[in-house]
């Protein structure tokens, strides 16, 4: 089973030293990604979803302190790698595309140059073969007139085209794992769909595993096989996409699902989750979601729940909550009926 995992992270902690103290951005995250699958990671800003991936990539600044029980990438023990060895894995074994294609490409270099850099570094291509590979890479992400486009600078591209070029660049090193950090957030809705479709096509062709970070559950529903929901630096629920949407088991997941507009049934007003995410410098004792949770029990403020398998659900569906929501929702409804 472990061999089927491209990425396997256990007990990842990331904290940042700042002037005002230590911020615990990631607090004990377990994650794994299977070969050829897409794992969606959902959470609001500050939930630690990006920091987790940046930590795996080794792209965090020096102020970050990273601890983990294990990080394995395609048979490489990343914890045993020094910065230089980790650098060599970037681009060739794992790549990352970023939210804003406007600022993530170097405005001073042509796209061809930026892609060629990858091909030269990770595939050792030179001269004519290199030039052809650049054009081929652009063609693969369905950029029209790739030979001409390779000579152009990022500001001559539209947002969607830039993101395509970015994908071409990041896949040029043939990585096993592609981390996509909100790849469609900055794009128009129609372009969003095209980019997600492109990612799916490329994944089918190459068998690349994808980690898709997003705050948009709609994106997850369409693209990911499995989903991890993060809240204040921890994974609070993990399940296959169907299971998560069918039986959300953490109050936060339920809140998220209730807060998205749906066309298929009209529920009246959308339900926002009350309150705001906790301050990572001063986390409350117990469950970090407790202050915003309407199902809290006394235990929630004493002890932080760990991620555990849920009885009565499919295997691999895990949530970090003391309350059995399925049982509770029935009784809660009963109670409110009973009261005058």
């Amino acid at each position, binding site marked *: 089973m472990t061999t089927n995992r491209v990425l396997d992270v256990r007990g990842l902690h990331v904290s940042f030293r700042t*002037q005002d103290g230590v911020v615990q951005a990631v607090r004990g995250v377990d994650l794994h990604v299977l070969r050829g699958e897409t794992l969606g990671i959902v959470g609001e800003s500050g939930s630690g979803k990006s920091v987790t991936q940046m930590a795996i990539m080794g792209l965090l*600044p020096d*102020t970050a302190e990273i601890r983990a029980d294990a990080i394995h990438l395609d048979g490489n023990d990343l914890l045993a790698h020094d910065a230089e060895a980790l650098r060599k894995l970037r681009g060739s074994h794992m790549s990352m595309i970023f939210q804003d294609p406007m600022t993530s490409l170097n405005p001073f270099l042509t796209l061809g140059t930026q892609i060629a850099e990858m091909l030269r570094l990770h595939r050792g291509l030179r001269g004519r073969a290199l030039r052809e590979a650049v054009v081929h890479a652009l063609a693969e992400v369905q950029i029209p007139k790739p030979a001409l486009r390779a000579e152009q600078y990022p500001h001559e591209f539209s947002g969607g085209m830039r993101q395509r070029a970015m994908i071409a660049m990041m896949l040029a090193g043939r990585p096993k794992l592609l981390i996509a950090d909100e790849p469609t957030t900055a794009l128009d809705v129609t372009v969003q769909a095209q980019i997600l479709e492109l990612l799916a096509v490329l994944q089918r062709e190459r068998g690349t595993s994808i980690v898709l970070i997003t705050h948009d559950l709609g994106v997850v529903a369409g693209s990911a096989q499995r989903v991890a929901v993060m809240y204040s630096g921890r994974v609070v629920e993990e399940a296959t996409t169907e299971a998560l949407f069918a039986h959300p088991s953490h109050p936060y997941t339920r809140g998220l699902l209730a807060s998205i507009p749906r066309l298929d049934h009209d529920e009246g007003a959308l339900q926002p989750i009350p309150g705001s995410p906790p301050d990572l410098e001063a986390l409350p004792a117990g469950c970090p979601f407790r202050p915003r949770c309407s199902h809290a029990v006394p235990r929630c403020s004493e002890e932080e729940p760990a991620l555990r398998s849920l009885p009565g659900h499919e295997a691999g569906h895990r949530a970090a909550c003391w309350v059995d929501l399925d049982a509770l929702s029935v009784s809660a409804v009963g109670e409110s009926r009973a*009261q*005058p």
Partner: protein
Amino acid sequence: MVESAHVGRRAAVRDDRELERLLEEAAKVRGNTLWSDARRRFRSSPVARWSLRFLILAFVVSFFAPLLPLAPHARVRLSEKTLAPFAEPLRQDGLFFRHGWPERFDGGASEEDRDALRRAAMDRLCADAGVIAGAMIRVRASIFGDFELTPLVGTDVLGRCLLSRILWGGRVSLMVGIVATLVSLLIGVTYGAFSGYVGGRVDQYMMRFVDVLYSIPFIFIVIFLMTFLRAQQTATTGRGDKILVFFVIIGAIYWLTMARVVRGQVLSLKHREFVEASKVLGGGTWHVLMRHVLPNVMSVVLVYLTLTIPRVMLFEAFLSFLGLGVEPPDVSWGMLAADALGAINPLRVYWWFVLFPSLALGSTLLALNFVGDGLRDALDPRLMEKRARR
């Protein structure tokens, strides 16, 4: 229904509490405005703090230099030339008011003659120094009489007390820096604020004009102008006026950048909500400018101001160094530096000529730069954000 009302009430109570908390926070924040915040940040930088203290000290000492019991800065005494620091002068006769006397004249004259001479000398000294410094010299005379300190940091090639020259030079140099900068401030802020506020075509033309002026190397024209002004002014007007002209000319060169900076700031402020609101409420152009825009431009202007002063002082030193700035008997630091360089020769090194004026000019300019940098860091919230993000 009942339940929802209940929930609603509970939510209302919670909202009330939330509101109270927010109000409390707001009250705390209000005490923490931009300026007090900036002051706190400025104080937290030791370099900037000590630089500011040094500057205040330098300014006070230079300004009150005429009160100090030092030799007159322009008194030539060849018998005491190139004395090293702390060396005893050859004669210790406290001759403060015999300014301009021939040295051999001391013996023969009668008591009355001496008194008359003394009075005449004092009048001339005071007249040379100008109104304020002249008055201070009289005060000094009533306190210290004829007493004067030995040349603490030595004398120059003409036997003039170097310390006295440095302090008097500081008066001119600092004054040029401040006054010229104020001139540039006045022109630049008015021009920039007007251009930015009116906007549109007027703004375009006004800024185009600034561009044209920018492309002219004014420094060369000014050097040019200074020489002719000197020739003319010695003939027609007094020295005080000439220094004034000097101020105005330097100020007039440095207003260009100030105008650009202010215009940019005003332009970005113009469309902020509070300015729009004031306009909607019927505030006139002048009112809006004075009440809402200028105070918000102040921080940028202040930073630019502190960074302009050293540049202006540098320019004054540069002109004086070339012999185009202030003229004897006035001194400035640039002139002292030029004198020092002129006296460098391989046979005998008068290190104090070079060291002390350079030290005075250098440390003042350095301190001004540090204060300017400190202010910029303290007042630029954008920079703060960047720092916090690191």
